[in-house]
């Protein structure tokens, strides 16, 4: 950590004017690119008054979008938590051939454009896809339906928990677990009573990030959704439709829900970081 400004020796201080200039430049940049967009969402959302705001949110189509988004997050986050813990357990606690490759594969969804992330599922499950004809024969809908949205969201959010837990488990080591096992504790008991509490902050951090992305994902979901109002529209897709129909206030009203989610995410993230300072890869 840097020493507090007051106790810093004079020669390590920039000229006062330079310091003020740097703070001003940084401030202006952040106001222009971060603060204004955030404020704009809420200002535009309430442009037509509180009644219009509430109407946009309790609208049945908006409500079904909210329900679908909650459902997707409700499925996706637990699945990726289990995957993240299993992946981190294998990678951080054991050495095996192909470990580096596995880490790269786990990271891969971060490097893939959201649009491509969605389209690969169309290529597998779509009508002309790998197993599309079989799915049609058995009357199973994946793409342009809820399962496709869940798959695409699973894909884009799969690295979050694993990426947070791998460095954490590596730095924490195994002494406590080994002690418990030596004293006769079973494997699962050791996991639930020792390992899980040890990783709880990192896990929570990963869950918060995973959830934010699961609820907010746009590009990948947009490809596989089919945009059927009331059926396969998540909140971000509903925002897009409202916006493209020039219902700007309604679009921003629904968008303000996602902005609130983002603010809660940032708050939790900062709170968890203060508690434990995980030094993972971040996002």
């Amino acid at each position, binding site marked *: *950590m840097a020493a507090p400004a007051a106790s810093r020796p004079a*020669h*390590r*201080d*920039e000229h006062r004017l330079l310091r003020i200039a*740097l*703070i001003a430049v*940084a401030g202006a940049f*952040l106001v222009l*690119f*971060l*603060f204004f*967009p*955030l404020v*704009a969402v809420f200002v535009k959302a309430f442009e037509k008054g509180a009644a219009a705001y509430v109407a946009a949110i309790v609208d049945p189509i908006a409500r079904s979008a909210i329900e679908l988004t909650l459902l997707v997050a409700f499925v996706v986050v637990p699945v990726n938590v289990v*995957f993240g813990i*299993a992946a981190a*357990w*294998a990678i951080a*606690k*054991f050495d*095996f051939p192909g470990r580096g490759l*596995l880490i790269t*594969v*786990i990271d*891969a969804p971060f*490097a*893939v*454009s959201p*649009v*491509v992330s969605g*389209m*690969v599922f*169309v*290529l*597998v499950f779509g009508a*002309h896809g790998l197993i599309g004809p079989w799915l049609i024969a058995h009357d199973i809908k994946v793409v342009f339906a809820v399962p496709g949205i869940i798959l695409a969201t699973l*894909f884009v959010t*799969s690295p979050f928990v694993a990426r947070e837990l791998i460095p954490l488990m590596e730095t924490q080591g*195994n002494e406590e677990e080994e002690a418990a*096992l030596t004293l006769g504790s079973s494997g699962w008991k*050791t996991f639930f009573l020792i390992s899980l509490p040890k990783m709880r902050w990192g896990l929570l951090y990963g869950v918060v990030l995973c959830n*934010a992305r699961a*609820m*907010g994902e*746009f*590009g990948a979901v*947009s490809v596989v959704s089919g945009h059927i109002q009331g059926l396969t529209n998540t*909140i*971000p897709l509903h*925002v*897009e439709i409202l916006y493209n129909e020039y219902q700007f206030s309604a*679009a*921003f009203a629904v*968008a303000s829900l*996602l902005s609130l989610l*983002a603010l809660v995410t*940032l708050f939790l*993230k900062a709170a968890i970081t203060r508690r434990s300072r995980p*030094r993972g890869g971040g996002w």
Partner: protein
Amino acid sequence: MTSADRRVLPGFRPAITLTVAYVSLLICIPLATLVLKSASLGPAAFWSAVTSPRALSAYRLSIVTALAGASINAVFGSIVAWVLVRYEFPGKRIVDALVDLPFALPTAVAGIALTSLYSENGWIGSLFAAHGVKIAYTPLGIVVALTFIGLPFVVRTVQPVLEDLEPEIEDAAAVLGAARMATLARVVLPGVVPALATGFALAFARGLGEYGSVVFIAGNMPMVSEITPLLIMIKLEQYDYAGATAIALVFLIVSFTMLLAVNALARKSAARLRMR
């Protein structure tokens, strides 16, 4: 610890089985399908899809705007990181937390918010419009969106390096007679460069693939303001799966090259940090 006594812990087999099965089904098979589909196109069809004038102009636009956004972030992100690490000011914790907003805010929300700000009658866009500069619905708008999206990458990679920088080195430079600016340029900056490069590469890679925040602000005119992910999307909507697949494969290869480059850079800068 050697791998032998690591095996004291149980659970390797179920953990690795679950992990490999999951990434195979969810990540490897879908991505492999993309490669397979492109291969089935045949070289001539593949080449003509990948090198059509519209595709070439989309690549160029994606690369130029992503480079511009990452460059803006390299400059201003470094300044933000410096100010956050070295100076005290009221509200610092809130500002620090707010830097992650582009990670937390869904891209569609960012897209419509930036569009409303930078369009001709928006708060910021109107100031520029008065001087005849259009931002929204031009490539400049894309740069604005990609600057927003890439902002946290540079700040969050440079910030920890600045925190770990040993002040003694700066003291030594000062004692040896270096002016403060010279110390910053010749002592602090070189220490930060690897992290800065990593942050730049991450912001660039993210900008290349970004879709949600860009489509609202870009104007989306073919050959002018149509980014590559949007072109893929349009081809999908027209059921031109062959064309979409070919372009997506090119894009996937670029993305993975970037990922490997970033990992190499990160390893290099980590090694440098350990050396000190």
